[in-house]
């Protein structure tokens, strides 16, 4: 154990004064160019720049992606979460500001971007979003004013993609794990083990 850590003594006395939680930002990542942005998680940050920094460090490094967007949690509005698919409705009109629309395919799933609508307020944006994108396949519509959504630039994303990062993916180990196991177990036994790895046990 490192000596510095071994010497850590519990600080005596009272805890420092409590601090209020910072703003919550919701983060969505895009796997490849043109694909929808899918919900990845949240970060806690005081402003947009820090939120984007954290989002890149956390979700931008979790798995390969080409871009991410974030907005402050309080800026989004969710429509109702239906049990089955939302009933499509007629609601057209092009007046008002631009809203980014997200759909949720099933409860417990992840929201993803579907497109944009124009609307004078969130409720109308949800109605128009449902009409345009629910398509019998969504159980919830979420909208955010497009101007409240912040996106990483291409230059920012490229920094994180300059080296092989398969060491942080399970599949990055498949080859060496197989070659080491098959020195101990025969191929059919290994295949069975591998199958159960994914299907039954994990």
């Amino acid at each position, binding site marked *: 154990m490192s000596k510095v850590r071994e010497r850590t003594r519990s600080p005596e006395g009272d805890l420092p004064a409590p601090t209020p939680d910072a703003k919550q930002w919701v983060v969505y990542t895009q796997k490849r160019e043109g694909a929808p942005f899918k919900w990845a998680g*949240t970060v806690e940050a005081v402003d947009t720049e820090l939120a984007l920094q954290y989002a890149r460090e956390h979700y931008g490094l979790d798995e390969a992606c080409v871009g991410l967007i974030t907005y402050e949690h309080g800026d989004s509005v969710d429509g109702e979460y239906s049990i089955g698919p939302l009933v499509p409705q007629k609601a057209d009109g092009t007046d008002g500001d631009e809203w980014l629309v997200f759909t949720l395919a099933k409860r417990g799933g992840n929201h993803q971007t579907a497109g944009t609508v124009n609307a004078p307020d969130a409720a109308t944006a949800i109605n128009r979003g449902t009409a345009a994108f629910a398509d019998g396949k969504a159980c919830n519509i979420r909208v955010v004013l497009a101007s409240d959504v912040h996106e990483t630039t291409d230059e920012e994303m490229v920094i994180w993609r300059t080296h092989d990062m398969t060491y942080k993916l399970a599949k990055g180990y498949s080859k060496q794990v197989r070659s080491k196991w098959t020195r101990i177990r025969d191929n059919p036994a290994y295949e069975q083990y591998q199958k159960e790895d994914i299907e039954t046990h994990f």
Partner: protein
Amino acid sequence: MSGAANPVSPPDITITADPEKLAAFEQRIADGILIEPGDWMPDSYRTLMLRMAEHHANSEIIGALPEGEWITRAPSMLRKLALTAKVQDEVGHGQMLYRVSQELGKSRDDMLRDLVTGVTKYHNCFNYPCPTWADIAMVQWLIDGAAIMNQKTLADGAYGPYVRTMNRINMEEAFHFKSGEDMVLTLMSGTKGQKAMTQEAFDRWWPISLAFFGPADKPNCEELPPMKWRLKIERNDSLRRRFVNRFAPAAIDLGLIINVVTKNEQGFVTSAKPDEAIALDKSTGDWSFTQPDWDEFWRVIRGNGPCNAHRLALRRFSYDQGAWVRRAIGDGAVATPPAA
């Protein structure tokens, strides 16, 4: 590393909700419909879910501490990169699970304060030491393996925000487990010294892994809120049996001996003899095994384990050290550097 949610069944709680609403809520869960924010839920459901998500979040960030100590001493560049990424993942899991908990009504600062003052707990397995590199391999293989087994069942739960977080976390746990399996395979294909070190680490971690799932549940646990409301999906004993079925034959094939051990207060093995109960029952496909020392489990969970004080001291140290940063950026007194 990380999370079983609750290794110990939460205490029984009194349900004080409108019976009609409660019946409709329970019917929804029985029908396999997930709960999303905005849906009605009994207060006791919210309390139990918060307790579970907060415990899980605490376990993620405390679990990063023993492994973090090994980043500087990882044996190769690849292992160093992978371990850094893994520790980063675990802290990220903590961030995501604190977020789920916040939505259920508790501030992040309150959760961090309750953790360092011992009001809330984290997973018991992180109260044990990792004195060698082989311990890090065992943690990634056995503890992350056990965590995936548990979390896969939790991803089948009823609370939408926890389920989507679990699905995302499990993807990363698969990397932790696979790199751990690769580390154990490497060590067990290595020198005599490496094999001996690995056996010693296995002796330390096998009983901790068995205890990971918590003691046997009450006989009627299926009718109690955690399982009835699908916060908890599978009995502890059932998870433990699946774990042994998976890992006992793998350990034996690797050349490891499954021992029954005694340990001293520092968590080091003082005696080891082969577990004679280890055997495959061909009729059921299940392996039999000796239960871990449950007295030790309770002793450690009550705060008297080898590393309890050390882990909490380090967390408290970080909380104190970070106070000025939280204050400074919270008040907007310090700006982030301008974008390049």
